[in-house]
């Protein structure tokens, strides 16, 4: 595995920077169940990092550790070169970690644009009294952020459903809205939990394109869980393979694909 201490250059010529997040010997238990066992890997600035593995490999749990929804019994999470103390998820979100969910978690009482607006909550600062008057600064703020959201809506090509209640949208679009919401947070680290689960081929292609564009346009660091090997292989710069909560391999797609353990545990299963 090539040395990438100082970051590296991808085939398509993107410069991958220093370590953004590092997970050290993470172990997570639910009661007796061992969800993750002593897993360690890092995520670098600007890269697309994939976590793959068969069902129940602990992928989602890993994501939940990263965004602080689960607190691992052992191990440390380092973010921006600092050890991260255990804190509520809301605080971790405030540090610039956004995510999407495997089974969509949109706010069903709201329209697309409102859902995207929720991603801006943290950046809205105007206090209660401005809010209740909804004039001057508060309204200014609202419009400024609305504009930002509209840019994302435009970016993800969901203008046509701007004012549709998300509940009534087809699955593929809901996924896209969720991505939009996450982007609205302007995250430093974007976590995607099976972004293409249950999509047809075209939808998958679109989604891949969007993920690449996001990474390209906003330089967002992306960590994604995916089932579909092929997708991961063209998307990801580096891949971590989990199986039954243990790490099987970590490296570039090709390295991983060649790795025997992976072939046995995962590819073997798939084909």
């Amino acid at each position, binding site marked *: 595995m090539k040395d990438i201490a100082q970051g590296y250059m991808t085939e398509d010529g993107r410069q991958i920077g220093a370590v953004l997040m590092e997970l050290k010997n993470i172990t997570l238990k*639910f009661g007796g169940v061992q969800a993750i066992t002593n897993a360690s890997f890092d995520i670098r600035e600007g890269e697309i990092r994939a976590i793959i593995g068969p069902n129940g490999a602990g992928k*989602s749990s890993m994501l*939940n550790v990263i965004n602080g*929804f689960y607190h691992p019994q052992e191990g440390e999470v380092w973010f921006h070169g600092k050890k991260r103390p255990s804190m509520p998820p809301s605080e971790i979100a405030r540090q610039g970690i956004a995510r999407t*969910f*495997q089974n969509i*978690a949109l706010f069903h009482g709201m329209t697309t644009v409102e859902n995207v607006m929720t991603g801006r909550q943290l950046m809205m600062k105007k206090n209660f009294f401005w809010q209740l008057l909804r004039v001057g600064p508060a309204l200014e703020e609202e419009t400024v952020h609305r504009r930002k959201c509209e840019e994302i809506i435009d970016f993800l090509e969901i203008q046509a459903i701007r004012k549709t209640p998300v509940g009534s949208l087809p699955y593929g679009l809901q996924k896209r809205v969720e991505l939009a919401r996450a982007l609205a947070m302007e995250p430093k680290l974007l976590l995607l*939990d099976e972004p293409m689960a249950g999509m047809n081929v075209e939808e998958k292609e679109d989604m891949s394109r969007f993920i690449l564009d996001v990474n390209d346009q906003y330089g967002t660091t992306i960590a994604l869980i995916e089932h579909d090997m092929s997708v991961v292989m063209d998307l990801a710069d580096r891949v971590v393979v989990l199986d039954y909560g243990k790490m099987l391999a970590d490296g570039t797609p090709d390295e991983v694909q060649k790795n025997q353990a992976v072939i046995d545990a995962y590819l073997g299963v798939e084909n």
Partner: protein
Amino acid sequence: MGSFIYSVLGDPFVQMLQMPDFLMQVVWEGFVSGILYALIALGFVLIFKASGIFNFAQGIMVVFSGLTLVGLHELGVPAFLALFITLGVMYVLAFSVERLVLRNLVNQPDIILFMATIGLTNILIGLGQWIFGGETKSMITEQLWLPTGSSVWEPGGGLVIFQHIDIAAAVIAALLIICLALFFSKTKVGRALRAVADDHQASLSVGISLNHIWVITWFAAGIVALVAGIMWGARSDVSFSLQIIALKALPVLVLGGFTSVPGAIVGGLIIGIGEKLFEIYWGPLFGSGIEGWFAYVIALIFLLFRPQGLFGEKIIERV
């Protein structure tokens, strides 16, 4: 200041020690009402276990059943026939609730179902007052061969009075609980019901339709309500204010956990005895009438430290 601390932390206990018989009396009173709270709470638990519905109407069901019984008797129906008919009424109630409400609300968020039961409460209040009138009635204790009068126990010169009806209440409640326990563990339906409580798919494998199970549980809850109604009616009398008192089953549940039968009982006793003691010994400090809220405040404080209740299991949230 010091005196206050004393009056809170010292004096009450001194009193208890000075008059142990009175203390025993108080505890006993509390124990009985505790049992009754437990009974009502049991009704909640049954339904919550089976259908995950928080049946706000349980309280009014107590009143309603009691009223029906007395009302029928006033119409000249012999006591036990009335009792029987009332059971029938409770079944009809259970049945129609399932048909008209539950069925149409499957897969709705809990809060919706909860509010539906509040609506149901309104309906029952209305019907009850409509049919039997709003005024309070006295329970037909003798006619049901329930004991009256009281016996006195004089431990070491002290004096503790046991109302026979209270004893009966305790006994019957105990019996009922045992019956239910047997029903759950021994009968097919009972087992199915437990299965449902665990997960709804399982129930299908047991081969009993959910709807059927709901009817049964609501009916069971109805019976429990009826018993509670009779007992309570016999101790005080049957009136709609009971419904408010019946709400105390909620704090009981909070203590016991929504899904645990033993929890309901223990919780009931804690609340029952606790609030009596507090009322008698600490009440004067606050001015009496504490019973009204004591239970809730206890529950509230308790909640902050153990949200899932004494016997409830911890909830693991998933994304």
